[in-house]
């Protein structure tokens, strides 16, 4: 993992600014996918509405930039906090829901946010809001600057998510996912941990949304008005692998890079996305990270045949 992070930090020296911009978008989706994974993969609460939190993060920083002249860094935190607060409230409202009902409820939330963006004049609907030039403390940011900003934010959030899921809180999340009754009878406060998971997950996705706004320098209900974003994040989690941070990295990259390389054939990208999704569900139901992990162990097993400790967990 550390090698991967180092690679990300030296990469801009070798690639064009354009690819840096594409990778920046990938990092943003990875952050959002990790947010969704904390709720869906680790806590077992399926959400099809995180596009709503993404939009909240994006509009928070856009409006702050427009009316208060606030720069990127405070915008990032404000976007995360606003999304986290809304996530906290939604978590309380939907506390009693689970499974399919929660999925439909969160989908309704995403559409409600979309129609608010379309109808309330402050959000300027399809006209959209342009952001001021990206800067921190007066320093202007170009493509590569933003690349570093997003890469560092992503690395920081991956480390945060990693320590979260290894902490007692993370173990409480998985306990809630595996059996609510068993978790409750071992003294885990269901209400507290479900709401906490909702809040953290929404905050991460909100931060991703804020970065997205700075990356495109423009937000409008054209992007945030429907359910495509929410669905993309869920696809990233399912294709990459539930309850796996490496899975979210793979899934986020899948969701961004596949349509990009097929952007001239938009319909074909849709078809391929659907086919890959179904193939993954049919043949690798635990996701790409699990598939690659098994392949890796198999190859490693051939190389070091005879040694007995190959079966230890090499996924990270």
């Amino acid at each position, binding site marked *: 993992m550390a090698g991967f992070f180092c690679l990300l930090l030296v990469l801009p020296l070798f690639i064009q600014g354009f690819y840096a911009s594409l990778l920046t978008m990938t990092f943003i989706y990875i952050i959002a996918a990790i947010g969704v994974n904390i709720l*869906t993969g680790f806590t077992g609460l*399926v959400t099809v509405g995180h596009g709503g939190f993404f939009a909240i993060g994006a509009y928070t920083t856009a409006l702050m930039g427009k009316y208060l002249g606030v720069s990127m860094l405070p915008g990032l935190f404000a976007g995360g906090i606003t999304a986290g607060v809304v996530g906290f409230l939604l978590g309380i*409202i*939907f506390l*009693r*829901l*689970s*499974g*399919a*009902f929660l*999925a*439909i*409820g969160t*989908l*309704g*939330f995403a*559409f*409600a946010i979309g*129609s*608010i963006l*379309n*109808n309330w004049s402050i959000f300027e609907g399809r006209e959209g809001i342009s952001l001021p030039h990206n800067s921190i403390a007066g320093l202007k940011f170009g493509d590569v600057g933003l690349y570093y900003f997003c890469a560092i934010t992503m690395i920081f959030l991956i480390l945060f998510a990693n320590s979260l899921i290894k902490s007692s809180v993370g173990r409480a999340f998985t306990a809630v996912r595996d059996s609510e009754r068993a978790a409750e009878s071992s003294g885990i406060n269901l209400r507290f941990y479900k709401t906490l998971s909702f809040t953290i997950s929404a905050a991460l996705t909100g931060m991703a949304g804020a970065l997205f706004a700075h990356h495109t320098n423009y937000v409008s209900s054209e992007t945030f008005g*429907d*359910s495509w974003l929410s*669905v993309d994040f*869920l*696809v990233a989690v*399912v294709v990459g692998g*539930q309850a796996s941070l490496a899975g979210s990295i793979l899934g986020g990259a899948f969701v961004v890079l596949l349509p990009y390389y097929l952007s001239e054939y*938009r*319909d*074909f*990208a*849709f*078809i*391929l*996305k*659907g*086919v890959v*999704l*179904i193939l993954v*569900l*049919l043949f690798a*139901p635990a996701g790409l990270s699990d598939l690659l992990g098994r392949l890796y162990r198999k190859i490693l097993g051939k190389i070091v045949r005879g040694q007995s400790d190959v079966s230890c967990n090499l996924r990270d």
Partner: protein
Amino acid sequence: MFAQQLMSGIATGSLYALTAVAIVLIFRNTRTINLAQGDFSMVGAFMALVFFQVLHLSLILAFVATLISVIVLAVLVELLVMRKIRNADWLTLFTATLGVYYILHGVSGWIWGRDTKSFPNIFSVTPVSIGGMLISEAHVINILIAGGIGLLLFLFFKYTRAGIAMRAITDDVEAAQLMGIPVKFVVTLTWAVGGFLAAFAGMLLAPIIYVSPGMMDTVLIKGYVGAVFGGLYSIPGAIVGSLMIGIAENIAGGYLGAQYKVTIAFVMIVLILAFRPRGLMGGQARREV
């Protein structure tokens, strides 16, 4: 004014009900929240255009051909995709229908393009007067057709062997299997009924919302609201829920402004779920998902 909006609300609501009932039927027999239900209708609308305008079939023939092709599509989805993962958890089933959704979206965009196409008005939209209310003839016919389908479904579930077998699977799959009911076949039949309802929804909605790959996206959400109203279990509940959405959005559209039509459905879904997690009429729902 109010009565008129009530009637047009019932007319649109009865079309949403076609989607909502199909969602409930498929969910309670297969645990699948079918995201592709709307796209079955969308493909149906495109097929109807092809049969009617390109191949110049007569109205009845085009209608029957559309019905058959959508049913075949739904059955194929079941046989090729859903059957292979039928024992997986519900999220897998749900995302698999999302995959189908992507494919149908892409294929129809590829074949027919992304621009919105108009659909000929089969029924006249000239208003007729019923008991002092002005209501368009198409609305009356839509209500009659949806009501007729509802009656047909009621008779199907009450009196035919296939219908009773479908209900048996809803109640208890294992017991049904032990009683010699061919579960796999009945599940396929459930998807076929879903396709049947989708074809009607597509053809009746097409003149109102026009034909495009994304035409059914918001209708699908409204179908979910109706389905959740019945706890994803009760067919009467889903019908009542859909009618209420139709009425609520028409009245909200009439008094608050047209842009609130869409918002109202989403506010309703959040409220219903927040206060009655199993739906207002979903008391019987027993299966945990």
